[in-house]
Each structure stands twice: as structure tokens, then as C-alpha cells.
């Protein structure tokens, strides 16, 4: 059996699955139930100053769905906790006492002034919590008041607040980043400069889920109006993975511990974030969709996969994918592929044909010898993978690397690696071929 325990910033938890700061972690009752199901830790829903904020009293969630109404993404306009600070602190202390082996992180959001941060940090320290997470991410509501993503979008503010927190508290500090920014590396670098111990990402993506075409208003609709919310769930995972990778391979932030967040629904999603270097992951939408029991699948799935791959601990595969994320200019232009259609698996739907014919390279037949048949024309195929992506049958179309002569260009395929940096068509081509920078190494998550 694989060992799933993690030590993130020295905070140990029995598995890498934490609940993200969100409605599921707003109360002792919920967190108690989560720990009973096996969650490794929680980030308590964001605390603010008293008096507590108020929430809207109409709908606060919106959604988009896939087939059979499978939830693909959730969107919320809920604010930070709307319960009194004392109540939350009291419950945090009790839960931590009752569950000493689980990670207890407290999310915080107060105005961008030193005093309020100093004050709340002292209160949190008294609860026995293991660390704090600075909520610089929420894109709705609080941002209008100069908090949440309004801070996260200004690297200087991030650095400043992170520095205050490190100054006024001994607790490990995690900075939660907003994805609502053009280049995630800047806020991450700022967090590091401010002395933060780790970053967590992504927070929700600013979004309007849909427009109600009967009353011409965004959903969820409050008395005929709607406001943008923060989107999360399976649909945001690709964006989150990219942002995690950007930070993991940035020379300035490489090695900074990352807590991965964004659409993690199954063990596989978690493994992908960890493979990019995350020390653990945080989950919200999956729990809000299916309940806390989903962690059982995540635990068994990750454990069984690690056994199968021969990974004894999380550290054995953490960060393994990060060095393979590179810039386009370093991709091997001599890697030539062609689509291959397995005729035994082909159900003749013709989607590969029409996608290629209408929108790509006219490289798939629809008729061979007068019969409905879909075959790749190697002389036209650029190996783009569109047919693979639109084919409804798994593994029916695959991409195969070819050697020798490319039937499309009629030219021999060089065996050695070559890239854009010195390609004759590149006006900026260097004399000598440049290679991707040496991959950054992943230090121990506990560091």
C-alpha cells in the first residue's frame, strides 16, 4: 500500500486531499463530517472582520452542465463567512483539538492595512491552527471593497500583505492566487518576495454562467439582475494546470511549495496536479456536487495507481511532469506523426472526415472503392490530432510517429532534434540551436 501522507510546509496530513476554503468548510458541523469521511485537511472558509458580511438572500450559485446534467462548472456569488469571528475561531479550535492528525488552515481576508492583519493573525494562532491562507482570490463582491482579487491583481499588495503576515505570525503563510490576471508568475513572484511559504491556486475564474433569455439577465438572477461570480469545477482544471506549471517552471518561483486547486474531481486530477509539482491539492466543487464521500474514491484511486506504478510515497512522483512543460520554440520539429484509424474499432460515424475536410487538411477519406470508409491520406495529414479529439471511440484513432520520408512534404525526416530557434523561416533565428533551459528541480515539499 502506497503511503499517501504529506508534509506541506511541515504540516502533516494523512493524504494530500484538503477541502478548499469554501462553503463546505464554513462550520464545525461540515468539517467534522468531512474528517469522518477521510479528508486529509481543510482550509477553513475565509474569516473577516466583525461585523460579519452579509450574503444575498436569493440564489448564489449558477452552473453549466454536460450530458445527463453532469455538472461541469459551478459559479458562486457567495462572500466570505457570514458568521461571527468568535464563533468560527471557537469551532476551529475545537475541531483541531478533536482531529489533531488533520491539517487545519485558516483562510483570511481583511482590509489592506497592517493592523487588521496583525489582529486577526493573533486570534488565529490561539486556535491551534496549522497555518493561514491569504485569500487574494475571490473575484466577486469582496473585490469591490478592495479585498480578494483586488489585492491578488496587484503584485505589490500581495508582497506587502504577505510580509505583514510573516512578520506578525509564526504560522506558515500560503497565498491563494486569483487566475483573473494575464500572467500568473507576477503575483507568485510577489508572494515569494513577501516571504510567503507557499502559493495555492487557482481561485475562481470571473464568469457569467448564462443569460436567461426570458428575462434577459445573467444567472443566478436576483430580482432581475445578476452579477459576475467565480467559476470553479471540472471546466477550470486545464487553466489551473497551466498556471501551476507556469509557477513550477519559473526560475524565480521554482521550488516554492504549491497547493493545487481547480476542478479536481477524481484521483487522476489530483495526481496530475502533484505531477506538476503540487505538494497537495484542494477540492471544493466535487464535494459540493457529490458530498464528502468522494474523497474515498480519491484515496483508493491514488493509492492503487501509485502501487501499480511502484511509487511508495507522494514525493516519488511529485513534480515529474514539470520538466516536460516547455516553450513552443523548443518543441522538436522533426517529430512527425500521422493519424492511424483502427478499422476494427471504427464505427463509421465520419466525424473525423468532416472535421478534417471542412476545417483542416482534407486528409481523411469518406469513401474508398465506392464504400463508406475512413482512411488517413498520409500525403495530406499534418498530424494535428483533431480527428483523435473528435472521434467518439476511445483509441480508435491514434497518432503514430513516422520515420524516413514524410509523404506530405516528400522530404526525409531528420533523425535529430531540431526546433524553431534556428529554423530558416524564423526571422529571429539564432546561429546556433537553443535548447530548453535545464529543468528546475523540485525541492522537498517540507522545506
Amino acid at each position, binding site marked *: 500500500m502506497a503511503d499517501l501522507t504529506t508534509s506541506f510546509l511541515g504540516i502533516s496530513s494523512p493524504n494530500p486531499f484538503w477541502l478548499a476554503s469554501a462553503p463546505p468548510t464554513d462550520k464545525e458541523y461540515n468539517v467534522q463530517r468531512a474528517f469522518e469521511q477521510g479528508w486529509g485537511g481543510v482550509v477553513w472558509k475565509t474569516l473577516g472582520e466583525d461585523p460579519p458580511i452579509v450574503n444575498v438572500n436569493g440564489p448564489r450559485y449558477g452552473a453549466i452542465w454536460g*450530458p*445527463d*446534467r453532469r455538472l461541469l462548472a459551478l459559479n458562486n456569488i457567495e462572500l466570505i463567512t457570514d458568521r461571527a469571528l468568535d464563533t468560527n475561531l471557537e469551532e476551529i479550535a475545537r475541531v483541531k483539538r478533536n482531529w489533531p492528525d488533520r491539517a487545519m488552515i485558516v483562510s483570511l481576508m481583511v482590509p489592506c492595512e497592517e493592523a487588521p492583519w496583525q489582529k486577526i493573525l493573533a486570534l488565529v494562532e490561539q486556535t491551534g491552527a496549522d497555518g493561514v491562507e491569504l485569500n487574494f482570490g475571490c473575484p466577486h463582491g469582496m473585490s469591490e471593497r478592495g479585498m480578494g482579487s483586488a489585492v491578488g491583481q496587484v503584485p505589490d499588495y500581495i508582497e506587502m500583505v504577505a510580509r505583514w503576515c510573516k512578520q506578525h505570525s509564526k504560522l506558515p503563510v500560503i497565498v491563494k492566487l486569483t487566475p483573473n490576471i494575464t500572467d500568473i508568475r507576477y503575483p507568485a513572484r510577489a508572494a515569494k518576495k513577501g516571504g510567503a511559504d507557499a502559493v495555492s491556486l487557482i481561485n475562481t475564474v470571473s464568469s457569467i454562467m448564462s443569460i436567461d433569455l426570458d428575462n434577459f439577465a445573467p444567472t443566478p438572477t436576483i430580482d432581475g439582475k445578476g452579477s459576475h461570480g467565480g467559476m470553479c469545477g471540472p471546466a477550470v482544471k486545464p487553466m489551473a494546470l497551466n498556471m501551476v506549471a507556469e509557477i513550477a517552471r519559473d526560475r524565480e518561483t521554482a521550488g516554492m511549495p504549491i497547493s493545487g486547486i481547480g476542478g479536481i474531481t477524481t484521483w487522476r486530477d489530483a495526481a496530475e496536479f502533484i505531477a506538476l509539482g503540487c505538494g497537495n491539492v484542494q477540492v471544493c466543487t466535487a464535494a459540493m456536487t457529490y458530498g464528502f464521500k468522494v474523497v474515498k474514491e480519491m484515496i483508493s484511486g491514488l493509492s492503487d495507481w501509485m502501487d501499480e506504478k511502484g511509487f511508495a510515497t507522494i514525493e516519488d512522483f511529485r513534480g515529474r511532469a514539470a520538466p516536460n512543460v516547455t516553450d513552443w520554440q523548443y518543441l522538436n520539429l522533426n517529430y512527425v506523426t500521422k493519424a492511424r484509424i483502427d478499422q476494427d474499432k471504427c*464505427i*463509421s*460515424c*465520419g*466525424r473525423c*472526415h*468532416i472535421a478534417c475536410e471542412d476545417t483542416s487538411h482534407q486528409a481523411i477519406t*469518406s469513401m474508398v472503392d465506392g464504400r*463508406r470508409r475512413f482512411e488517413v491520406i498520409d500525403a495530406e495529414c499534418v498530424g494535428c490530432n483533431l480527428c483523435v479529439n473528435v472521434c*467518439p*471511440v476511445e483509441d480508435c484513432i491514434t497518432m503514430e510517429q513516422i520515420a524516413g520520408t514524410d509523404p506530405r512534404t516528400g522530404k526525409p525526416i531528420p533523425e535529430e532534434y531540431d526546433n524553431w530557434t534556428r529554423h530558416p523561416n524564423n526571422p529571429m533565428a539564432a546561429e546556433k540551436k537553443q535548447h530548453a533551459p535545464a529543468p528546475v528541480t523540485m525541492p522537498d515539499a517540507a522545506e
Partner: protein
Amino acid sequence: MNAMTDPARPDIQSGRLPAEALARGFSDLHPALEPHEVLVEADRCYFCYDAPCMQACPTSIDIPLFIREIQAGNPIGAAKTILSANILGGMCARVCPTETLCEEVCVREVAEGKPVQIGLLQRHATDLMMETGHHPFERAAPTGRRIAVVGAGPAGLSCAHRLAMLGHEVTIFEARPKLGGLNEYGIAAYKATEDFAQREVEFLLKIGGITIETGKALGRDIHLADLRRDYDAVFLGLGLAGVNALGLAEGEDQIGTRDAVAWIADLRQTADLSELPVGRRVVVIGGGMTATDAAVQAKALGAEDVTIAYRRGREQMNASPYEQEVAATRGVHLRFNLQPKRIFAEHGHVTGIELERTRIEAGKLVLTGETVTIEADQVFKAIGQSFVADGTDGEGAGIALERGRIQVDAARRTSLDGVWAGGDCIAEGEDLTVVAVEDGKIAAMDIHSALTAAERVAAE
């Protein structure tokens, strides 16, 4: 006769079943999908390129498109897509043997043995359209042309609708009191519940420009020569008025022996099915859909023992494997390789039937001499129908026939100038609603181009 054990009074009665059981037996064979089921099912469609389902549909409905319209929350648009290719798309959604047409070639049938349920999706869209009470098509500017359509079955209705849409004035002549043809008089009741055939006719006629003359039979009340003289074109959708006889030495005219087609027509016109008599023991002779429809409905009325006797093997049955399965699961006994020899009767009333075992030798049906007797109170004959040429000949130039039915070309033109034909009465007739609809549509388009071409010539 010694094989007969109890030749007592024939047992043919009505009210064999309590109302609830009767209602259950005649309830919708394929209940409509629930709205969520519709979305899940629609999502299974791959939107194939040059879709095989569309090619298999005799009316070439753009199936992937209409399913995508359903998926996208536009079932009314889906209905328009369906109805523009097949104005009787509602009935076809219920009665088409989809398992041998669109659904048979669905790539999901090929891949996983579970096709997209195209028929039920089509029904969903067309039902919603009909519920709106609106007719989705408008007539083109009036052409001043008048066309006579003889027969208000699927072919005639389809032809009339298309012609009306193109701006022509249409008069439909129908011998029976109601329109719809086999949709009204022939389809099994559980395939078109809640008076669907009449509702669909009403829906279709909303296009306008169609005059109805019921009780007008060709050769009796109206005559082809008159129609050709009085109208710019004539379409014949006469159906098959005749039924084949068993040709037995004895018994065929006994009380208790009936043509299945006529019995089903009676059934369809009986408002209260508890008043329709049926035998305790029923034997249906034949292997087509009429045979299974008659047998299943006899069972649904409360007949205890219902047997279908077919002279060839199961594989040769015209009723599809699905129809056979419906019959079998509803308690109909299917027996094969049995050819009727004689019908027993006492006091002029059927008591049973003697059949002779057959086998196929070198592709030919051979009698074996071995006989089987089945006791029966009622024997239904469902061994095919034939074209009755009344009214189409003997009035000057006779219409050319082929294999006993009207000969037509690809555009459904007959040998007579200005006369088109379609549906079961033509040589290519396939005994399928959807094929008849296509015939009517093709004929209408050809009539339209013939009339507009004539206009162009006249103008020049």
C-alpha cells in the same frame, strides 16, 4: 373431425377482460420519452457525417440535424426539419419499423447494439409541434391549378399537403368516412393511441387549400376520365382494396373466419373495445405485420389461446424480429411451417383448422403430408392484400399494370397522361407508411414541375 374434442358452441364474446387489463393491452406500445430522457437520448447521437440513418429513411429526414435541434432546446425546429421531409412524421415515429430502417444502420447499433432511439426522439419533437396547435408551413402564392387526389391514405395525404403548400388547390376523394387510410383503419391500435391518426390529419389539413370529399369511391361515385378532364392532374393513392383468399377446399366461408384486415378496421372503429367480440381460441394465418397486429390485438381483447400459423420458417416472416418479439412476449404462440388445409366447422361455425407441415426443399415449399389440427373459435386470414383495379380501367385507355399493381416511373407517373400514383397500389409499393409518404411527396413535386413547365410553354 375426430381430432376435435369439444365441438360445442363457438366461444366468441366481448368483454373478456376487466377495463383495466383492456386498457393496459391497448396502451401505447412505445410510451413517449420523458423530457430528461429525451435530452440524454439526443446526446447519444454522434451527428454523423453523411449519416447512415438519413440514407436509410425512405423520406430522407435529416435525422442528425433534428436530433441536434432537440439537444439545443429547439424541439419545434426539430419538428419542422422532420415534417418538411415527411409530413406524417408523427405517425411514422410510431409505426415505422425503425429497427429495419434508420435505427438498424445507426452507428451506435453497429458499435454497441443499442441505436439512438430515433423514432422516440422524432415522436417527441412532432408531438410538441402538434400540441402547439400551429401548422409550421405556409402556402405559396396560388397557382390556380387544381389537382384531384384519390385516396386519403398516407400517399394521398402527403401528396395533397405538398401540392397545397406549393400553391395548388387540391380535392381529396376518399371512399371511407374518415381520412387516414391504413393509419386510421389498419395500424394496430396500440401503435397509434388517442386517436392520433385523426389528430394528425387535422394537423396536416391546416395547411389550407385542401377540399375533402368522403364517401367517394373511384369507379362508383367518381370516374378517372372525369377527373382527368376536370382537374389539371390526378394522383391515385388507392391502396390495396382486395384481400387474398386461402383457396381451401372447405371452410373458408364459415362464420368465425374473417379477413384480419377487416377485423382490425372494425377494431380501430370500435369506441368501446369491451364491446368487441373475440374468440376464446384464435388462429391467425399469415406471416406479415397484419398477422402479428391481429394476433396481438386478439390477445389484448382477452382471447385465451392465440396462434400465428405461418407456412414458412421464422426467418422468412415479413413481420420483423421485433414484431415477432412483441407478439411472443404478449403470449401469442408463433408456429412455423404450417400450411392451412381445411377449416373445420359445425353448424356453419368454425371449430378448428387443419394444417399440413411444410419444409423447404431446394428453395421450394414442399408439403410433407403430416397434418396438425388446432382448435379455434375464430380464424383470421392475413395472407396479403391485392390491388383492385376498379375504376382505373374500363374507362377508355386502361392504366398499365405491373405484377397486378399500377406501373409508375421514378417520378410516380403512370401510363396515363396527367395521372400519378403512389403508395401500396403501385408495383413498388412496400406496405410501409413512410414509403407511401415519399411516393406522395415525389409525385407532388413532379406534378408541380409538370404544371409549371406547361405554364412556361404556354407563356412562350
